[in-house]
C-alpha cells in the first residue's frame, strides 16, 4: 500500500549553509558532510551579508581568500541580524589578534591556510549537530600574549577551543604540536574528571605566551586529586606493570584511557599540579636565540 506523503507544512524547514567564495573543493566538502542541507553560494562578503539579511541561514563558511580581519568584520555584521548563525572563518591571512576577535564575536571556528580538509569536515559536522554552542567559550580577557577563557565542559566545545588554540599559538614546530597535544590531554581530563562533562560546568583556561616560553593553565571545577592516589592513570603504574591501570579501569567500568598525564609530561618541560589537584600548569620553553626583546606589552586602555 503506498504511503501517504506528509503535508509539506509538517516537515521541518531545510537548513541552509552559505558558502562564500568560488572554491569548488570547499563546496564539495560541505555537500559531502551536510547532504541534507541546502547550499547557498555568495561570491564575496558583501553578497554574503545581503543573503544572511534576507533568509534564515544556519551556517556560514567564509571564503579562504579573504583576510581574518575582513571575515571578523562580516561576523560582526551578521551578529546584528542573526545572533545564532554558526560562522566558520576560513582565511589566507591571520593573526592571533584576529583569532581573538573571532572568539569574542562568537565565531564557531577559525581556519587559516593550509586548511586540513579532515579537520574542517569535522568542524562543519560539529557545527551542524551541536545543540547549543553560543556560550561555550567566554573570553574573560585577552591579548595575543595573555588569554583567559571560561570553557564549557563538553567535548564539542573542547574541539572548538583546540582549533582556536592551533590558530592563536604562533609557536615554532615541533613545540607548537607538543604543547597543543599536552593541552588537549589536560583540557579533556579537566572536563571529564573535574567537570564530569557537565555542560553547566566550566573550566578556566589561561594561555601565556612569553618570549621563550608558553604556559597553559587549566583549572577544573572538581574536588581535585593526588597523583599518588590515581590507580586509573598510567603515570601511577609501577615500571614493571604497564597494564595495572587498565586492569583497574576495566574492573571499575571506566573507558580505556589513563595516559593523559604521562603523554602531557612527555611533551612539555614542566607539568605542575596545585596542592588540591584541580589546577595544572603546562610549561614549554623554546628558541633561546639572541633575538631582541619584544618590549613591554601594555593594554591599550586601563579600566
Amino acid at each position, binding site marked *: 500500500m503506498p504511503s501517504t506523503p506528509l503535508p509539506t507544512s509538517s516537515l521541518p524547514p531545510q537548513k541552509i549553509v552559505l558558502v562564500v567564495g568560488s572554491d569548488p573543493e570547499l563546496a564539495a566538502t560541505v555537500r559531502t558532510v551536510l547532504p541534507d542541507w541546502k547550499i547557498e553560494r555568495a561570491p564575496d562578503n558583501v553578497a554574503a551579508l545581503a543573503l544572511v539579511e534576507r533568509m534564515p541561514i544556519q551556517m556560514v563558511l567564509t571564503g579562504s581568500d579573504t583576510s581574518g580581519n575582513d571575515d571578523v568584520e562580516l561576523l560582526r555584521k551578521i551578529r546584528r541580524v542573526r545572533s545564532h548563525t554558526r560562522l566558520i572563518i576560513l582565511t589566507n591571512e591571520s593573526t592571533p589578534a584576529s583569532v581573538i576577535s573571532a572568539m569574542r564575536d562568537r565565531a564557531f571556528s577559525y581556519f587559516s591556510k593550509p586548511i586540513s580538509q*579532515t579537520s574542517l569536515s569535522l568542524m562543519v559536522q560539529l557545527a551542524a549537530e551541536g545543540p547549543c554552542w553560543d556560550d561555550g567559550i567566554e573570553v574573560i580577557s585577552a591579548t595575543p600574549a595573555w588569554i583567559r577563557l571560561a570553557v564549557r565542559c563538553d567535548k564539542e566545545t573542547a574541539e572548538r577551543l583546540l582549533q582556536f588554540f592551533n590558530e592563536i599559538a604562533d609557536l615554532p614546530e615541533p613545540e607548537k604540536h607538543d604543547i597543543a597535544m599536552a593541552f588537549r590531554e589536560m583540557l*579533556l581530563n579537566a572536563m571529564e574528571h573535574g567537570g564530569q562533562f557537565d555542560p553547566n560546568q566550566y573550566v578556566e583556561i589561561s594561555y601565556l605566551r612569553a618570549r621563550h616560553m608558553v604556559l597553559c593553565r587549566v583549572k577544573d571545577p572538581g574536588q581535585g586529586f593526588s597523583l599518588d592516589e590515581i590507580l586509573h592513570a598510567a603515570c601511577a603504574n609501577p615500571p614493571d606493570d*604497564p597494564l595495572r591501570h587498565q586492569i583497574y*579501569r576495566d574492573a571499575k567500568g571506566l*573507558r580505556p*584511557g589513563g595516559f593523559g598525564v*604521562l603523554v602531557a609530561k612527555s611533551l612539555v618541560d614542566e607539568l605542575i599540579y596545585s596542592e588540591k589537584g584541580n589546577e595544572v600548569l603546562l610549561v614549554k620553553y623554546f628558541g633561546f636565540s639572541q633575538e631582541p626583546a619584544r618590549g613591554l606589552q601594555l593594554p591599550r586602555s586601563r579600566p
Partner: protein
Amino acid sequence: MALNLQVSTSNNIAVVLCRGRIVFGEEADELRRVILGLLNETKNIVLNFAWVGQVDSSGLGTLVASFISARHHGAKIKFAAPSPAARKVLRTTRVDGLFEIYDSTDDALKSFRLPPNIAAA
C-alpha cells in the same frame, strides 16, 4: 568521525588499515569495536598505523585494553608501519613494549608464520 578503518583478511590474519586519528570519542570507540569483533574470528591481527596522525590518551588506552582482550582470547595483535607520530607516542608511554612492531604489513604477516622466538627477535 576522523578515523577510517579498512579490514582485510589473508590466511586467517586480519589486517586493519587505520587512517586518521585515534582519539577520545567515536574514533577510539570504533577501533575498540572492530578489534573486539575480529577477536571472535581470528587470533592474529595486524594494525597498520602508517596513516595515523594522532594517538591520544584514549587511543593508547584502547590499544592497551585491546592487548588485554587479545591475551584473554589467546590472540596476538601486532603493529605495522606506524607513522612517526604514532611511533613517538607509543615509545614515550612505553606501550610499544607490549606489541611487536614491524616496518611493513608484509613483515608483520610473515612474522605470524615464523616460530615465535624468531618472529619476536
